[in-house]
């Protein structure tokens, strides 16, 4: 007759002001790094922030932020863990070191389950770290999360932007709110991405340079916020989310 989980999702997100899906279509463009650092930096600027790692077959945010030994609590549902002041949920607490091969239908089901049982408290931002591809997770986010907004990440590469362009077209067509596009891992000057993004009437949010030091900061939140990467991202974040 009915899957009771679906109807409750809106209620679970009731106290969250903005839900931001950090997405791309393309893999390896820095979605996880941007989602994690954005959550951290907004939280340090006194916003209340949640981070939900939705890349179930390859979760990364716990590595970037060095989140270990914290677990959601069970209390009439799942209460997100607290990590560096961020409310945090990742499937890593349940899949651990094991490979978790999930077909699209499983991704969809796991996503609905976690949304249905997680009690997000009052938050200014819930940041979602999305998997690559334009598939179940992206489609379900559009389908189930009424207040979703997409923050799209590209690199300067043609290969990345080709997919990003398709994702943008889809979001525009479906009138899904778009925060805009961040161009990450910039190594030399070029207007390729900016020009094409603006031609689609989508906000171009700014560039982040390739930062050879960022990886050394993984696992250490204090070091991470002090990287060139984090500083540029913070500039963008404060402009975009004043």
């Amino acid at each position, binding site marked *: 007759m009915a899957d009771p989980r679906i109807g409750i999702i809106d209620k679970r997100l009731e106290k969250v002001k903005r839900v931001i899906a950090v997405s791309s279509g393309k893999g390896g463009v820095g979605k996880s790094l941007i989602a994690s650092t954005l959550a951290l930096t907004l939280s340090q600027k006194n916003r209340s922030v949640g981070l939900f790692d939705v890349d179930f077959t390859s979760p990364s945010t716990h590595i970037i932020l060095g989140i270990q030994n914290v677990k959601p609590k069970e209390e009439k549902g799942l209460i997100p863990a607290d990590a560096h002041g961020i409310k945090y949920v990742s499937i890593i607490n349940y899949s651990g070191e094991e490979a*978790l091969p999930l077909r699209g239908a499983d991704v969809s089901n796991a996503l609905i389950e976690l949304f249905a049982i997680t009690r997000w408290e009052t938050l200014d931002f819930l940041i979602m770290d999305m998997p690559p591809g334009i598939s179940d997770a992206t489609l379900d986010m559009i389908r189930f999360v009424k207040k979703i907004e997409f923050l799209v990440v590209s690199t300067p590469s043609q290969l990345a932007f080709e997919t990003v362009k398709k994702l943008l077209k889809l979001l525009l067509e479906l009138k899904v709110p778009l925060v805009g596009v961040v161009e990450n891992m910039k190594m030399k000057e070029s207007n390729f991405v900016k020009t094409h993004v603006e031609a689609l009437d989508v906000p171009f949010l700014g560039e982040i340079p390739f930062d050879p030091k960022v990886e050394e900061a993984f696992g250490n939140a204090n070091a991470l916020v002090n990287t060139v990467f984090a500083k540029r991202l913070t500039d963008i974040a404060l402009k975009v989310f004043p």
Partner: protein
Amino acid sequence: MHEWALAEAIISSASKIATQEGLKEVIEVKIKVGELQQVEIDILEFALSELKKDIFKNAIFTIETVKAELKCRICGHQWVFSKDKLDVDSAEAIHFVPETAHAYIKCPRCGSPDFEILRGRGVWLESIRGVK
């Protein structure tokens, strides 16, 4: 104890359907609970009894447990899930997110994690009976 969250979802979903069907009072709500997720029936029942009000005040919630049947996509083998074969942590993971079964359960015949959950996953609203 996330049974409480599931109970809320059931009541909320049942309310919507009752409204759609123009019910003034709900007499019975039938629910199916899959064994894979090992929902604690007692707690679910308690949560439902605490949460029911308004048109659900006198409703009976009937809960049926459904065996979890899995079918391997590689060799076709079909089997019934038994929690006794799982350690506590894996069972807990599956309790929260049944899909993590693909990390902990393998086809007993060929060892593949590429199986389908034919039935017995999660919580399902089966039917609602009431007075218009």
